[in-house]
């Protein structure tokens, strides 16, 4: 490979030809024959050129960026050549992953039969270390990442001390647990490692260097031993989705720390090292010392060589020959911001001006070289840079080195900055609430049984309880999801027996997921339960807003370097852990079904249609909405796909690939039988065909990012990767022809694909090995149609939201400015979308027949908003129509059913017969009326749709267009409503009638009579009457006083009694607060009170009348009561209780007994028609059955006779009765 570079340097081959040669296997006619000849001899090596170049650059830069190559590319050639690499003890950082690209020696063979070759390459780098790099538990999403800056470079595991210089490489293998290799304290470590003493205690220039730019540490790998145990919360089975271990940083440093630890504690376990390292990489505490070497264009050595390589490199980037565009930019910016050259110890690293045009001498001999090279590349990449966010542009434009080396570029950047509107804002996360209860899907009718309904009711509550607890506690140290919530979650899942309940729960789960996590920054704590944003609209929560802003600014940043592993940040962590803790097969299956369905639905959502080419201001306004909608859909899809990937690959997930080829083959054989959870390949192909890659690919990448190690080897997924690689290659940013994808759309796809190619589970060599097959594969896009890809649907906001790691560029530049390695973490924040509006409803698919075709044609030449409006109106009116029919026609039928049922009950006696039979009879009478629903539905749609369309379309819409739109809306709405109605109206009527029947039958109970006919209060009533509760309470007090026991001084004043009865009258007249049970109790209490009056049992307050109430007073009170009973009570008054043995028995206790009041009362009852004579006679008759003292029985018999003997005009007898009131014997005497 070096030969190619050499021939370039010798100018035997032009750069353009070389790049063409790399990009395409076939020689193009443009090639100079001489060049072709020079290159063709190197043909077998063609594929290896790019990896070679990248690794070459990384290696060359290692002296500038001494803490291991900062970017995860390492030359296979050079490192493979190093002694002692393969088969050495586990070397954490230096597994196969430590190379971006696999060793060359296998690559030509690998091209032919990739899997085996790859496996071989992989096995060489034993798993644990490299897996650690990728997926340490307690990763970024656990919120630890903030301080420790877990740069994900670990995935590309580079030993920290492997900057290509052989001496350092040799010291690299870090078997930390090997005591011999790491002798205890004090002993000087042998070899070059000794040149790096503890950085914290005694900083040497070297250590200063490495601390300068923190990002450099990101590519180092964590020590192998630092494996999961440090984060107990992670279930062993799935190290997935967890970010890097907190201790992820340079091995050198780990060694230093380990040594220090050992000095204190001899038997230190490796995990302790890990724990220690959680403190994060040392913060630069000596920032003052960090003055960077100034770079001077005049001191650049071998300009020409640098220019040439920069050109080749830039061309590779431009042709998408590098796997990750942003990673290369990051590398270049690192070169730009390199502080100083490492002091070299070996003479061979001295600049050797004698051989400037060969590869013998180092490429970067000074910081000046680095900066020069970087600026050269940046000049070529200006177009990409100009699309970065405003903040990055500003930092670039303000970079003094850049100004110094290329004032022209600086000028262009400044202009780009000034013209940029791509401010990526610190929007507040949308405040999520609980998923609201929707009767249409959540009420009883949607469940198979009452039990299922109630179980789900409880589950909803448990789910949110768990969620709230997680919110409160997940950031507490030592809190563990599984320990804290696991058993509760499983208990809840255990109740989900019926399949239907699972689907309900899954719907809730998925909705809540979308609500809370749509924004990538769905940062747990602040989202749930937060005052909704509408508050700030109301101006009521400024303080809260400020507080939240503050929280955000001080919150640890959770970005993980330019290519972080897939994580579940913020609230997503809850949902991931929930799935893990639930460990329910049924739940996972239902969840996959539901996620797949939703993904399909959203993926096929009709998004912005191509506008007519003449863009004016109006359509620009529309585009705001289109973009927002696209962003919403895209973000939702990504989230759903990520979780689908998580659940779908969960059973296969393991920390490392299968150890042997045989095992792997058998796994492959098994797995290839399993159909994919969602046919993503078909969706991808559809997406490409329909030119909707910009929508489909980002979510597909999320899905694939959670695949396990085997997935990329399965034929099905291999073919997907092949397509993606092809797509990646085709997204050449500089091509801007008609029908090309928009620039930012391309940039988004390049960013996500580049990221995907860096995922640990994606074979590192895949990117280069698949290349050979690319030419064969052509995706037949329907080029004529301009799909989403050609629409400017992506803006910087969305780009940064989807790919927060692009923000690392800005962070890197900012750290250069601040010299503090971005420790404050304040500049690059997560980006969250500003809107929370729901996803648009899917338009009805009703296209049948010529009319439908005409309608389609009509829309074709209209702005897309017209179509959306019509579809929206139709959808809503159709739905409203159904609701309207329910509320009118069905409700009428139900009330008819009720009255029919009443008749039935009257004719057939109280229980009316078998309810099921009744229902059948009613339905057979009523269901035929359902046919009216269609007519009424049609009328409704006809009436309502046009107005809605008119209101929503621009005033200026031409009359013909308007009326067509109205008609189409009417048609669609009618179709929707009638389709539903004709299919469901009978069932609906049945259901409602059934509910009414059971309601009516239930109402036949004893309560029914009490409900009777009720009067309200009079119109003038101001509802100032005493409250019923107060009256019951007062009367109860009187009763308790009367019944006793009471203190001697206790009693009731007659005035109070009169007042009380007066109040009772008022209360009964004002019905405002009166409910039937209260009225019933009042009635009963009033009867009890009357009995006590009759028996003279009310203790009267004060000395004048120690006996009791005067007879006259008592009679007056009884009169009041009688009139209340007659006129004011609306519930039946239990008057027969007046003659119950218990109440009559009260008389037995009084001496002398006085019967006159009772007789008076009985007569009045008859007089007022409150009780019939016979009724009273019956009561009196039954009284005689009770056991009484003999004299009482006799008196009672006398009373009975007296009452019977009375004529129907009782007034004169009353007087007669009064004559004898003092003598108990007189009543009897009169008989």
């Amino acid at each position: 490979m070096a030969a190619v570079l050499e021939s370039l340097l010798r100018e035997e081959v032009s750069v353009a030809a070389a790049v063409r040669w790399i990009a395409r296997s076939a020689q193009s006619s443009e090639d100079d024959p001489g060049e072709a000849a020079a290159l063709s001899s190197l043909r077998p090596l063609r594929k290896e050129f790019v990896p070679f170049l990248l690794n070459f650059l990384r290696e060359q830069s290692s002296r500038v960026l001494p803490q291991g190559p900062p970017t995860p590319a390492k030359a296979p050639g050079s490192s493979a050549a190093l002694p002692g690499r393969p088969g050495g003890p586990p070397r954490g950082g230096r597994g196969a992953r430590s190379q971006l690209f696999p060793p060359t020696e296998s690559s030509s063979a690998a091209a032919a039969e990739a899997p085996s070759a790859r496996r071989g390459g992989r096995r060489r780098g034993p798993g644990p270390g490299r897996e650690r790099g990728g997926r340490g538990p307690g990763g970024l999403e656990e919120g630890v990442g903030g301080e420790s800056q877990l740069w994900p470079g670990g995935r590309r595991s580079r030993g920290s001390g492997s900057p290509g210089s052989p001496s350092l490489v040799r010291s690299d293998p870090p078997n930390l647990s090997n005591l011999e290799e790491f002798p205890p304290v004090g002993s000087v470590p042998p070899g070059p490692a000794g040149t790096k003493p503890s950085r914290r205690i005694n900083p040497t220039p070297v250590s200063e260097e490495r601390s300068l730019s923190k990002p450099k540490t990101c590519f180092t790998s964590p020590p192998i031993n630092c494996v999961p145990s440090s984060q107990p919360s992670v279930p062993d089975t799935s190290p997935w989705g967890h970010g890097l271990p907190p201790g992820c940083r340079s091995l050198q440093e780990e060694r230093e720390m380990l040594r220090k630890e050992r000095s204190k504690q001899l038997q230190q376990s490796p995990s302790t090292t890990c724990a220690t390292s959680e403190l994060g990489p040392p913060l630069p505490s000596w920032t003052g010392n960090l003055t960077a070497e100034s770079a001077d264009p005049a001191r650049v050595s071998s300009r020409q060589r640098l220019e040439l390589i920069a050109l080749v490199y830039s061309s590779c980037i431009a042709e998408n020959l590098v796997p990750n565009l942003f990673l290369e930019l990051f590398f270049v910016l690192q070169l730009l911001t390199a502080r100083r050259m490492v002091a070299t110890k070996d003479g061979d690293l001295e600049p050797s001006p004698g051989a400037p045009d060969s590869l013998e001498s180092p490429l970067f001999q000074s910081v000046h070289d680095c900066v020069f090279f970087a600026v050269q590349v940046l000049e070529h990449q200006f177009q990409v840079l100009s699309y970065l966010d405003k903040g990055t542009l500003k930092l670039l434009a303000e970079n003094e080195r850049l100004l110094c080396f290329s004032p022209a570029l600086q000028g262009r950047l400044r202009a780009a900055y000034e013209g940029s509107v791509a401010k990526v804002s610190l929007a507040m996360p949308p405040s999520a609430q609980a998923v609201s209860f929707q009767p249409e899907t959540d009420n009883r009718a949607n469940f198979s049984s009452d039990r299922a309904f109630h179980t789900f009711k409880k589950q909803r509550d448990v789910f949110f309880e768990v969620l709230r607890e997680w919110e409160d506690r997940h950031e507490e140290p030592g809190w563990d999801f599984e320990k804290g919530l696991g058993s509760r979650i499983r208990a809840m899942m255990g109740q989900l027996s019926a399949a239907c309940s699972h689907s309900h729960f899954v719907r809730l789960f998925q909705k809540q997921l979308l609500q809370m996590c749509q924004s990538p920054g769905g940062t747990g704590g602040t989202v749930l339960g937060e005052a909704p944003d509408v508050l700030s609209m109301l101006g009521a929560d400024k303080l809260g807003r400020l507080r939240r802003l503050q929280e955000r600014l001080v919150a640890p940043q959770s970005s993980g370097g330019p290519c972080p592993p897939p994580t579940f940040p913020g609230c997503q962590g809850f949902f991931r852990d929930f799935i893990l803790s639930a460990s329910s097969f049924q739940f996972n299956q239902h969840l996959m079904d539901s996620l797949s369905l939703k993904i399909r639905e959203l993926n096929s959502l009709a998004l912005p249609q191509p506008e007519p080419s003449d863009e004016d201001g109006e359509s620009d306004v529309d585009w705001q909405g289109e973009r927002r909608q696209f962003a919403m859909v895209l973000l939702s899809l990504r989230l759903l796909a990520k979780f689908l990937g998580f659940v779908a690959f969960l059973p296969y997930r393991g920390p490392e690939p299968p150890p042997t080829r045989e095992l792997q083959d058998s796994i492959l054989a098994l797995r290839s039988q399993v159909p994919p959870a969602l046919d993503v390949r078909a969706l991808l192909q559809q997406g490409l065909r329909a030119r909707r890659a910009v929508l489909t690919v980002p979510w597909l990448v999320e899905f694939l990012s959670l695949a396990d190690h085997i997935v990329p080897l399965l034929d099905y997924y291999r073919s997907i990767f092949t397509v993606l690689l092809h797509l990646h290659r085709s997204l050449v940013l500089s091509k801007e022809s008609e029908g090309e994808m928009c620039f930012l759309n391309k940039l988004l796809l390049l960013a996500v694909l580049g990221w995907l190619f860096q995922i640990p589970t994606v074979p590192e060599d895949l990117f280069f090995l698949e290349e050979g097959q690319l030419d064969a594969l052509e995706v037949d896009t329907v080029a004529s149609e301009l799909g989403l890809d050609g629409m400017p649907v992506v803006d910087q906001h969305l780009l940064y939201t989807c790919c927060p790691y692009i923000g690392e560029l800005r962070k890197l530049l900012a750290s250069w400015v601040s010299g503090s390695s971005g420790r404050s973490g304040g500049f690059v924040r997560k980006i969250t979308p500003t809107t929370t509006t729901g996803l648009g409803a899917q338009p009805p698919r009703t296209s049948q027949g010529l009319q439908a075709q005409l309608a389609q044609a009509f829309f074709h030449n209209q702005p897309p908003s017209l179509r959306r409006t019509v579809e929206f109106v139709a959808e809503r009116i159709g739905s409203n129509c159904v609701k309207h029919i329910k509320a009118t026609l069905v409700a009428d039928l139900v009330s008819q059913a009720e009255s029919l049922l009443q008749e039935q009950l009257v004719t057939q006696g109280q229980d009316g017969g078998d309810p099921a039979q009744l229902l059948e009879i009613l339905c057979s009478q009523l269901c035929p009326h359902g046919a009216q629903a269609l007519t009424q539905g049609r009328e409704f749609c006809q009436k309502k749709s046009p107005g809605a369309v008119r209101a929503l379309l621009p005033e200026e819409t031409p009359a013909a267009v308007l009326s067509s739109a109205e008609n189409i809306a009417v048609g669609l709405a009618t179709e929707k409503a009638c389709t539903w109605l004709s299919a469901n109206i009978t069932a609906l009527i049945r259901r409602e009638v059934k509910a009414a029947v059971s309601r009516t039958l239930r109402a036949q109970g004893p309560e029914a009579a009490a409900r009777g006919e009720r009067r309200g209060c009079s119109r003038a009533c101001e509802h100032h009457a005493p409250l019923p509760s107060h009256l019951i309470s007062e009367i109860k007090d009187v009763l308790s006083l009367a019944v006793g026991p009471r203190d001697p001084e206790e009693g009731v004043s007659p005035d109070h009694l009169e007042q009380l009865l007066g109040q009772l009258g008022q209360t009964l007249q004002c019905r405002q607060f009166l409910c039937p049970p209260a009225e019933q109790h009042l009635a009963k209490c009033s009867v009890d009170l009357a009995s006590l009056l009759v028996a003279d049992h009310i203790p009267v307050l004060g000395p004048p009348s120690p006996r009791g109430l005067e007879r006259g007073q008592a009679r007056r009170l009884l009169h009041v009561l009688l009139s209340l009973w007659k006129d004011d009570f609306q519930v039946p008054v239990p008057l027969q209780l007046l003659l119950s043995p218990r109440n009559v028995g009260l008389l037995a206790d009084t001496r002398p007994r006085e019967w006159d009041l009772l007789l008076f009362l009985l007569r009045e009852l008859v007089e007022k028609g409150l009780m019939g004579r016979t009724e009273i006679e019956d009561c009196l008759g039954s009284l005689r059955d009770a056991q009484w003292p003999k004299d009482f029985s006799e008196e009672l018999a006398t009373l009975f006779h007296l009452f019977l003997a009375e004529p129907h005009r009782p007034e004169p007898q009353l007087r007669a009765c009064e004559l004898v009131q003092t003598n108990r014997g007189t009543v009897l005497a009169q008989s």
Partner: protein
Amino acid sequence: MILTKAQYDEIAQCLVSVPPTRQSLRKLKQRFPSQSQATLLSIFSQEYQKHIKRTHAKHHTSEAIESYYQRYLNGVGRNGAAPVLLELANEVDYAPSLMARIILERFLQEHEETPPSKSVINSMLRDPSQIPDGVLANQVYQCIVNDCCYGPLVDCIKHAIGHEHEVLLRDMLLEKNLSFLDEDQLRAKGYDKTPDFILQVPVAVEGHIIHWIESKASFGDECSHQAYLHDQFWSYWNRFGPGLVIYWYGFIQELDCNRERGILLKACFPTDIVTLCHSVA
């Protein structure tokens, strides 16, 4: 009437082993003249109920029941007109109405062939005239009218108070022109959990958005509030978002700690209500 935890504790302290009679209530009112009677009664009732819940089991052992019944029989044997049952209840520190139930149940077991059903017993407690034994009927009646924490009358009063406050709240909402759905309407629509009122358009109370209002005609102490949170308020939150709870008889100040989370407590109808302004048309 919002009390601090300390104020509340002071009141609760005075209520230890106080029988639920009108005399006790009177003394309580004298002891805390500055507190509203309704609040005091509510606290008293709740404290007493807690006490009964704690001691309930020991009164329902068969030994205890037998011993109470014998004491009752002996008592009424000596003098049927004396408040035997009431005094027994006070003596053993149990609610009179509940004691009446125990004795009635025991009595019916002895006199009927089949054990009495719950509904029969409830009906007899509501209307002691149905009790076949006149003396027992009087004793039971006396217990019921003298019990201010338990019994059918007290239940009815509590129910009435709850209803009245809902009506009051409804009037206030109507007066403020806030449209709402009430519990019955919600139930008819098939909601599984229904607060008293759901606002059709949310409003902000003291800067907090609320979607629903629940009326509680009682004092909000820790115990009842936790139970309500678990059974009702969070469930409402889970379905309808943040909301307002009005404890008409006050609550312990410290319990109003979920405002940020979406559960706001008030002791009266709020005055600081901000409604959504309709955008300039």
